[in-house]
């Protein structure tokens, strides 16, 4: 019903609806669109990199442009593609999984998205305004502080803005999960995806401020003449490395843990068996999150921190392999004795297990500090983190999208196309990255624009580039699949997979208040419990009554726009102080919108019981 109404309303009002929405399900769609857009951009950058490296002494792109490409590929994929896509899944699923009607702070949820989007746009605007940042996604000082032009300024401001959005999203999920769970949904009954979201949100909360500080210091050095990383003023560039990795290592877990959560949902559903070792899985998630903060200096083994620091961080890093191993074995034993159905979502999951195991193996290998003296900043590391981030996070996102697509959009993605996507992408992925382990040890450092013809590095690079094109084909087929399914797919029931968790208890499409009556949770896999007892749906925990829902608001969009404008002002004021006016105007818009938000009461609205009975809001 809602789709026909939406069509009648026309594009203008639909746009306004999405600009002002505070509904977590619509924000999930926005995150998906934004993240997907940047994923395509990051993918094109990757292809350009691979084309450049297909032969020795190639000049497909210039050396300077190559550095912009590699910087933007990394930055885009981490901050603007992987994280938002993960947030898309979290927004779509977590409130449903805990039986909530929305997140704790719907307004902030919207603000988080718009900050991410405008931060990403600001960062990418650099392409058209004199060149993108070129100091690597790690932006090590003093290269980043001395890099000419405004590229790195866009990096600093763009990430600062989108980082603020991420922090807000993290706090929002923390409070949502603590305060908004349905009756009976105890912590140890929460689905694993909710658990990983919870831990990840805590990681965001404690990791992102380190990046915030780092970016501020970098901005001060570049734009306001301070000397944090300038050796001639007594500064110390290693501080940046510490701050960056205190954030950067937990960031890796911020990405991978939700993927773990996705797989922990898919495997029980399609094995028709409850998750093996649930308690151990929860414990392992918490432990990985905790250890994630103790290991940042393993990115800095060659910085010269000394043998004591290197040894401690090496051992701490190896320790993470234990909870990760626990997870792998628990997944395998979830399938053991089950009734395994293999479809696209499951294929990505099954592809993930060996791929990620290899990534984890090389993870232990790079943790051995003296071995890392060889791996560090070589293609071995490139191979390792792509095995973890593509083989883990991207596979997880694809798996999650196939799995929850009917929940988000009411239709099942085409299975044949899904399988074509998987196999091309999976083969391409291993072709691209497996050989890079060897390239690294054969003496190819990462971030190399070119290599000598006499260095026997050509064959490996050719194979790698061919693999990259396979991945591109896989991604294109997926996009085609999305379009075809949207246009021609059939609406399915609210529970097409014989699901176990609460999100499958809502009808299709899910009404904007999610649950007319809050469900009563009676154990792990609450929907499965009801089904085994012969009931069709959840037992309500409350009588039908008025539902309180938040009001939509355009203010998050305006606030983010203000920061976006201010960003340009801050960047260009160093050329011409008059740009400070732009910065002030932008900040004025932000503060003005905050002021309005602060003084204007927003009590939300009620959907009345009578209207609910008539099916309003569907």
């Amino acid at each position, binding site marked *: 019903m809602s789709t026909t109404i939406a069509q009648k309303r026309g594009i203008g009002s639909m746009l306004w609806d999405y600009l002002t929405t505070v509904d977590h399900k619509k924000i999930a769609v926005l995150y998906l669109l934004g993240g997907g857009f940047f994923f395509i951009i990051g993918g094109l950058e990757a292809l350009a990199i691979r084309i450049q490296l297909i032969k020795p002494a190639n000049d497909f792109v210039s050396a300077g442009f190559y550095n912009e490409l590699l910087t933007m590929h990394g930055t885009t994929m981490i901050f603007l593609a992987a994280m938002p896509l993960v947030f898309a899944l979290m927004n779509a699923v977590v409130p449903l999984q805990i039986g909530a009607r929305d997140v*704790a*702070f719907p307004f902030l949820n919207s603000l988080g998205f718009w900050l991410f989007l405008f931060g990403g746009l600001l960062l990418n605007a650099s392409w058209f305004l004199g060149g993108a940042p070129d100091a690597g996604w790690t932006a090590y000082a003093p290269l980043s502080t001395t890099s000419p032009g405004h590229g790195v300024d866009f990096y600093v401001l763009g990430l600062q803005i989108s980082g603020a959005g991420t*922090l807000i999203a993290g*706090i*929002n999920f*923390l*409070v949502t999960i*603590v*305060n*908004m769970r349905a009756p009976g949904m105890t912590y140890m009954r929460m689905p694993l995806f909710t658990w990983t979201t919870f831990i990840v949100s805590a990681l965001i*909360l*404690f*990791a*992102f*401020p*380190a990046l*915030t*500080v*780092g970016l*501020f*210091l970098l901005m*001060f*050095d570049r734009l*306001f*003449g*301070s*000397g*944090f990383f*300038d050796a*001639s*003023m*007594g*500064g*110390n560039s290693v*501080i940046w490395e*510490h*701050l960056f990795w*205190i954030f950067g290592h937990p960031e890796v877990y911020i990405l991978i843990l939700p993927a773990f959560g996705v797989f922990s949902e898919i495997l029980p559903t399609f094995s028709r068996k409850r998750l093996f070792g649930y308690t151990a899985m929860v414990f392992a998630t918490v432990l990985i999150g905790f250890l994630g903060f103790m290991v940042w200096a393993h990115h800095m083994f060659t910085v010269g921190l000394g043998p004591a620091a290197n040894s401690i961080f090496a051992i701490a890093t190896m320790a993470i392999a234990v909870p990760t191993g626990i997870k792998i074995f628990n997944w395998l034993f979830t399938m053991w004795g089950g009734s395994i159905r293999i479809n696209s979502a499951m294929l990505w999951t099954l592809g993930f297990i060996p791929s990620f195991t290899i990534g984890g193996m090389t993870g232990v290998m790079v943790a051995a500090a003296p071995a890392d003296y060889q791996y560090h900043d070589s293609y071995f590391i490139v191979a390792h983190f792509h095995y973890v981030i593509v083989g883990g996070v991207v596979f997880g996102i694809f798996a999650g999208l196939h799995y929850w697509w009917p929940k988000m959009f009411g239709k099942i993605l085409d299975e044949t196309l899904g399988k074509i996507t998987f196999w091309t992408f999976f083969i391409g992925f291993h072709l691209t990255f497996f050989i890079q382990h060897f390239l690294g040890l054969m003496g190819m450092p990462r971030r190399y624009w070119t290599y000598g013809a006499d260095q026997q590095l050509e064959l490996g690079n050719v194979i790698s580039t061919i693999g990259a094109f396979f991945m591109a084909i896989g991604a294109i087929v997926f996009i085609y699949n999305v379009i075809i399914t949207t246009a021609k797919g059939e609406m399915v029931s609210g529970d097409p997979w014989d699901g176990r968790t609460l999100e499958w208890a809502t009808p299709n499409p899910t009404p904007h208040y999610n649950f007319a009556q809050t469900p009563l949770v009676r154990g792990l896999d609450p929907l499965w419990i009801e089904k085994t007892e012969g009931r069709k749906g959840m037992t309500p925990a409350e009588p039908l009554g*008025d539902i309180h829902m938040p009001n939509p608001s355009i203010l998050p969009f305006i606030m983010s726009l203000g920061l976006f404008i201010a960003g340009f002002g801050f960047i260009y004021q160093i050329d011409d102080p008059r740009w400070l006016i732009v910065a002030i105007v932008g900040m004025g818009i932000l503060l003005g919108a905050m*002021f309005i938000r*602060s*003084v204007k*009461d927003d*009590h939300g609205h*009620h959907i009345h019981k009578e209207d609910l009975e008539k099916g309003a809001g569907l």
Partner: protein
Amino acid sequence: MSQEHTLNPEVFPDEPEKATLEGKNKFLGFWFFLGGETVLFACLFGTYLALQGSTVGENTAENLFGLELVFIMTMLLLTSSLTSVYAMYHMKNNDFAKMQVWLGITVVLGLAFLGLEIYEFYHYITHYDFTFRSSAFGSAFYTLVGFHGGHVLFGLLWIITLMARNAKRGLNLYNAPKFYIASLYWHFIDVVWVFIFTVVYLMGKVG
């Protein structure tokens, strides 16, 4: 109608800041936010400690800092934290007028603190030629203390806005959480200052 009633009950609850779901969410969310802020300041402190001695022949902590002024500033801020506690005490008793008075005193003390801080910076810049760009120490000092000062300014604007917005309509369960988290923020600022006083000023003067 029902909303009006839930937000203005006849008997004010014991913890008006947590009486509604929105209030509970605000309360918890703000504590989480302060957790993040703690990391933010921890990073700034770490940076400051690493660069404390990087004076490259310019002014050092020892020749710059005078403890008298900083002591007065500390007393002002500590007292303002106490007055905001009184304000919250009156909020819980649903005594809006007294709450406003104590918040007003808090604001005055905060403004005095901020004035002295500005004077302090002005003094360093004009008398010692010690600026943000003098040395890595200078950058780290102004950044750490300045971030705190920025928090004080934001806190003051926040409390003033709340006081003005609600001056006419008084307390209810909708704005009680707002007052409460503003006072939480104010306490946090105070705690950070205690660390700044110890690490930057005391240790700078003694160590």
